């Protein structure tokens, strides 16, 4: 119920047994804040060269090195499609639209996959022959997790999550089973204008055998830096599924919704290209937004060279109950270093109310290790 009141809802679903879906229902509390500009564009020429170099150098010792990061798939060439009218006016216009939609469905369906990460289910789209998969950040969660990919015919392959940008909700995965995979081209989201027709697919409610990706048609309502809004309806399980233009190029990734059927939000594909190196190197960055009902520690922290310094404690909150004191510096949370408040926030968001967490502190010269039972955010 609470989630209904929030601005936008992310669209991954957990597998609750026998139920179509349930699960990670956290909201983006402040969507304007999460829409910070994407990091500066990588120079594709430069990264190409860099990749060439590093490959040459690292090949002999490739065993213990991370695999070289490939360049992002190049942007699609100039759009050749016949421009569509601002509004279809007659049968000819509609027939033309229908032909294009049917063509896009045929072209793109083999590359649209269901993804399962832990107990969450979402969707994704393959963009390279060797199996890089675009998806939503909240489907990835964090780098290095095991993923099962499900093709429309039910075939399954395995892989890993790579990088994630929580700010913009973009995420990358890679199929690790060797093979040549059907894939689609990445288009240019910056060229999309309000009124452009788009096709979205994905697995609403999670993958169902015998049901190929579910096709929907809509129009671009707004294309702001950082997010695209369309009137192609989405629901839980569609997260990470692709948005195609009428050329069949992926231009966005499904991310979140709010109440009305015209408020469906997608991550523009350009951000995947712009941050490709970071995503492919399994970097995790950006800020997750806390949600009501999520885990709560009950502290206000400030950055400190050694970790997160506790500035305030919620009276009778979980941290205080666990023995934490104002002035303590949290150096590790749940066994992981917390160099800054963002890192602590991210770790906390992965926990559930009631979880018991080990917290390592710097208190004067002591390094006490306390246990805190997390509370529930009101």
């Amino acid at each position, binding site marked *: *119920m609470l*989630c209904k*009141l*929030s*601005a936008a*809802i992310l669209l991954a679903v957990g*597998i*609750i*047994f*026998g*139920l179509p*879906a*349930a699960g990670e*229902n956290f909201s983006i509390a402040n969507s*304007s804040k999460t829409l910070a500009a994407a990091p500066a564009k990588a120079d594709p020429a430069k990264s190409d060269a860099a990749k060439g170099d590093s490959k040459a150098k690292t090949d002999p010792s490739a065993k213990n090195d991370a695999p070289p990061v490939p360049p992002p798939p190049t942007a699609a060439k100039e759009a050749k499609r016949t421009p569509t009218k601002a*509004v279809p006016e*007659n*049968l000819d*216009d*509609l*027939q033309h639209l229908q032909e294009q*939609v*049917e*063509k*896009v469905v045929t072209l793109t369906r083999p590359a649209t996959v269901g993804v*399962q990460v832990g*107990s969450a289910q979402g969707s994704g789209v393959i963009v390279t022959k060797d199996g890089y998969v675009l998806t939503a950040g909240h489907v990835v969660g964090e780098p290095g997790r095991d993923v*099962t990919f499900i093709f429309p015919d039910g075939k399954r392959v395995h892989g890993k999550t790579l990088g994630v940008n929580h700010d913009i909700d973009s995420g990358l995965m890679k199929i690790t089973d060797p093979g040549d995979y059907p894939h689609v081209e990445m288009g240019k989201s*910056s060229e999309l*204008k*309000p*009124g452009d027709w788009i096709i979205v697919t994905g697995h*609403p409610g999670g*993958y169902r*055998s015998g049901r*190929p990706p*579910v*096709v*929907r*048609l809509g*129009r*671009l309502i*707004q294309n702001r*830096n950082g997010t695209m809004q369309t*009137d*192609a*309806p989405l*629901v*839980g399980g*569609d997260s990470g599924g692709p948005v195609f233009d009428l050329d069949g190029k992926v231009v966005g990734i499904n991310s979140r*919704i*709010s*109440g*009305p*059927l*015209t*408020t469906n939000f997608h991550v523009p594909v350009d951000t995947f290209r712009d941050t490709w190196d970071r995503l492919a190197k399994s970097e995790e960055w950006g800020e997750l937004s806390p949600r009501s009902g999520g885990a709560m520690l009950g502290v206000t922290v400030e950055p400190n060279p050694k970790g997160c310094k506790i500035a305030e404690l919620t009276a009778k909150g979980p941290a205080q109950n666990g023995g934490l004191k104002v002035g303590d510096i949290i150096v590790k949370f749940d066994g992981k270093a917390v160099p800054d408040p963002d890192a602590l926030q991210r770790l906390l968001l992965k926990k*559930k*109310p009631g979880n018991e967490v080990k917290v390592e502190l710097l208190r004067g010269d002591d390094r006490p290790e306390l246990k805190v039972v997390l509370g*529930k955010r009101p």
Partner: protein
Amino acid sequence: MKKITLRSALIVTLLSLTQIAFAQRGERGERLDPNRYRDGRDVRAAFRNIVADADKATVRVRCGGKDAALGTIVGADGWILTKASELRDPVVCRFQDGKDFPATLVGVQPSYDLAMLKIDRKDLTPVSWTKTSEATVGELLATASLGQDALAMGVVSVPRRKIPGRNGVLGIQLDESDKGPKITQVFPGSGAEKAGLHAGDIVQRIANQITKSRETLSETVRSHKPGDTVTLSILRGDETLEITATLTLPSFDMGSNGSHNVDQNTMGGPLSVRSADFPLVLQHDTVLRPIDCGGPVCDLSGKVVGVNIARAGRVESYAIPADQITGLLPDLMSGKLAPKEPLAKAFEKKAESPKSETKLTDSKMSDSKSPEKK
């Protein structure tokens, strides 16, 4: 329930206003004129000629003075097809010109939730059914209305398929493990809890099926109805246990994790009460209200490809394909499928407050249990 929806609508309105304010400052801030949205006035107008014939074969079905469904004219001498579970006495059919005609219920086909109404008119124009039994995903569709334009447009989302009845649930959350699906959570009040399943249990068999993956397990459960029992073979530590659990509706408390998909599906509008358990449907993405089911849906040639039968989710509406309907018409008209109970009695539950929704689904499920067809 209603209050909450209203509140959420309010918040969202505020949000979109903020977005407009942002947009005006942004570089690509232009927003599409709502008249040009997919279901906006301008786009629907493009379908005017396409739906013109089907519009003439569409009526508004009203029950007890309220809109209940749309109806599809299937015979010139007063035969009107509509969605059965939305009906209650007294039924009238309203035409484009605003005139009302009292209707009698002459046939009900429960597995498709179709009802045949008869009115005293001999001058009607029936729909023109498509000859094809194919449906191409991506094909454009338009739902007819009593007005001039299409009620709404959509595309075929999925090839024709059977929609299973609402299944029972065990009430567990799963992860994969080397030895099989592993229970990570058992929900309080669920059949799983009552049967004594624990987090950490590994499910090796269910109903004599080896559970290699979570899907085998969840599909086996989905093939059962609430009230059914299933026997699971469980690995708990080194022990193997046989546990029999009774499946339930997903009505237990799933905590902060729970039932949000149900909420998401109702975000954007109410759903049909009877929205599952159909032998064959065409799934499309047309945005309909439950009271707009029962009417004809056309392809671009203006032929009727089916009759809308359910608003089933935020992204899905179902239509019964034309070839299925035409096969049922003779029985629906002949009295062979005459309702056993008078309408008011047969559907009186429908008249209760929306609170009874779950109950209704319940009774529907036990109803549909006996004539289960595969």
